[in-house]
């Protein structure tokens, strides 16, 4: 799970990391008003709030915003109004969003802090060694601010340090940092800054924490000018304060509902709706469907779902998606029990009616029970013994249906 920059900065502030003074605004008028509360004379930063990076070099889909990105320096209150007006209710497209972009529902207005040299700081997890990595790199120009692109093109420009599960940097590690950054002054402040960021990372069970950029002002104080935290969904139960923010994440409503049930839901295109109980099976099915000329509108991964009510709610998501013209339910039950999925299908069909073609394939745990549930329901649900047969059957039904 991700949160907005201004929410992450509030966390930073609570942990003693310096962030510029800022306020959130939902309308251009509000933006201008809060700007004057922050500072009587400016300048101010106007920052589009979406939960994706590279906003600075992004573009808005509506032309009224011109060619400028989602982070802008504004010298007068009128500029704050104008920039906010261009960004709000507009879609911001960056290298980290889909082509459609993300809707900007709010802007964050901040005091402007002058920084001498900008750096990127990241804490991420290396899956292979199961340890935390520190990443650090100087930001030389706007376009190399994208850490992923940079790590592919110029990996030598990034300091990557495996810090295991240490709660603080050792003095040896810290001298490597100093050497890499070519910094002699302010080193105590820097160490303090890095350790505080690391503390946030562990405290909140983050899987990624990025400050892009941070840097020193003329007094040698270190400021986090941005803040991005990705939380481990599996650990959110430990963090009620973060869970309270989940209703406000800016992701698709259906995705959000599915994630609340512990499922994965993705929308792709127009075509069939796929329900399966694993990513591997789902992706393989999507590829097989494509070979048969069937596009996929969306897929729902019920994972190891064994809760009847949640399964029913999940199936409903697919049934209610208007882009779906046929449904393929492909379940290979191990942990998952086929009969519970069959119960869910019947319950949704009784509730909403079944007016699009549906093919179900069940294999594995409680397969026979599932098939007899479908059979005795009296609904026109076709079944198949394997993926390819199921898809062929569905293709015939969808084509007839048109």
């Amino acid at each position, binding site marked *: 799970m991700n949160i907005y920059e201004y929410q992450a900065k509030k966390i930073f502030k609570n942990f003693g990391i310096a962030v510029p003074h800022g306020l959130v605004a939902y309308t251009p008028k509000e933006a201008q008003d809060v700007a004057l509360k922050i500072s009587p004379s400016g300048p101010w930063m106007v920052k589009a709030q979406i939960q994706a990076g590279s906003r600075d070099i992004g573009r808005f889909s509506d032309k009224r915003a011109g060619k400028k990105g989602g982070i802008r320096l504004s010298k007068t209150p009128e500029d704050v109004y104008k920039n906010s007006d261009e960004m709000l209710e507009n879609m911001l497209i960056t290298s980290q969003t889909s082509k459609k972009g993300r809707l900007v529902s709010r802007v964050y207005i901040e005091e402007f802090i002058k920084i001498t040299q900008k750096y990127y700081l990241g804490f991420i997890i290396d899956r292979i060694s199961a340890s935390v990595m520190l990443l650090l790199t100087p930001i030389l120009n706007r376009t190399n601010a994208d850490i992923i692109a940079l790590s592919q093109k110029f990996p030598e420009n990034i300091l990557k340090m495996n810090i295991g599960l240490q709660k603080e940097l050792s003095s040896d590690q810290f001298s490597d940092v100093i050497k890499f950054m070519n910094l002699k002054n302010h080193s105590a402040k820097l160490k303090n800054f890095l350790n505080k960021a690391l503390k946030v990372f562990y405290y909140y069970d983050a899987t990624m924490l990025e400050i892009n950029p941070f840097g020193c002002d003329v007094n040698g104080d270190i400021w986090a000018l941005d803040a991005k935290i990705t939380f481990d969904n599996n650990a959110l139960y430990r963090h009620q304060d973060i869970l309270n923010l989940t209703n406000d994440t800016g992701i698709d409503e259906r995705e959000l509902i599915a994630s609340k049930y512990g499922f994965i839901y993705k929308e792709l295109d127009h075509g069939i709706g796929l329900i399966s109980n694993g990513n591997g099976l789902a992706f393989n099915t999507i590829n097989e469907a494509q070979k048969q000329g069937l596009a996929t509108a969306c897929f729902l991964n019920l994972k190891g779902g064994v809760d009847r009510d949640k399964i029913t709610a999940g199936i409903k998501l697919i049934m209610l998606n208007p882009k779906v013209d046929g449904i393929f339910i492909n379940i290979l039950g*191990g942990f998952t029990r086929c009969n519970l999925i069959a119960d869910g299908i019947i319950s949704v069909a009784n509730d909403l009616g079944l007016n699009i073609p549906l093919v179900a394939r069940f294999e594995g745990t409680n397969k026979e029970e599932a098939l007899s549930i479908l059979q005795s329901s009296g609904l026109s649900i076709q079944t198949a013994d394997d993926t390819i047969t199921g898809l062929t059957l569905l293709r015939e039904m969808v084509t007839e249906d048109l």
Partner: protein
Amino acid sequence: MAVLIDKKTKIIVQGLTGTQASFHTPRAIKYGTNIVAGVVPNKKEKSHLGIPLFSSVKEAKEKTGATASLIFVPAKSAKSAILEAIRADLKLVVVITTGIPVNDMMEIRQELKNHKTLLIGPNTPGIITPQVAYMGTFPDNIHKSGNIGIISRSSTLTYEVVQTINNAGFGESTVVGLGDDFIIGTGFLEIIKDFNKDDLTKAIVIISGFGGNYEIELAQTYKNLPKKKPIIVLMVDNQVYDSDNIGLASDIICHGITTSDEKKHLLEKAGMIVVNDLSSLINKLSTL
């Protein structure tokens, strides 16, 4: 023969009294699995489903001679259950639990360095030696004994592969699900070494996962291993898998490799055969 488990392997089930364990354990026993004890902290009963209960892994190990544990404990208490099994120095621990926090898994991996335990999972269907025994939640009706060893990071795709290769006349020596979580206990290489020593296994099928660099690690480490048995890697294209996934960005940054094409190239260079769908898998298996 087969790898990791057979009829004699003495297995305990941690969290035996829970709903899922109560459902899957009797099925495994009926299949032939030698489940000797359940471990439930603060237990009230002496037995469950006719299986004796103990309150600690250590006690269960001492009283029954068990060498393996199957863990069904819910995510919130899984860390302490897994650490308990590792610290009791069981040879094999299989974790079915899904949703274990990443930080907990990092701590578990750290503890694992001080012990010889082989940790399989979490988020895995487990290990099955067909028609002999299994630890996990396998659909027991689809597996057939044979000479293909399977190592997989997916659960459901494994069942699909098993059913497809069985329909084509093959069977499995042992199927090992490594688990599909962000951090898992054991990578591919350890299990390849086991299959290499196993007389029954003639070829190995690897089912790759989505995201993660376990395949890259495999390519890098397998290079130095003597090539004993043909390995076919099934890598389904993942056009859908996108940057929303937490794994991707850190994998690129840590290891610099992204696309399935790049992974495929590395695996082939290391001496493995790579296929991207099930029909090609069957074709390759038929030519071995």
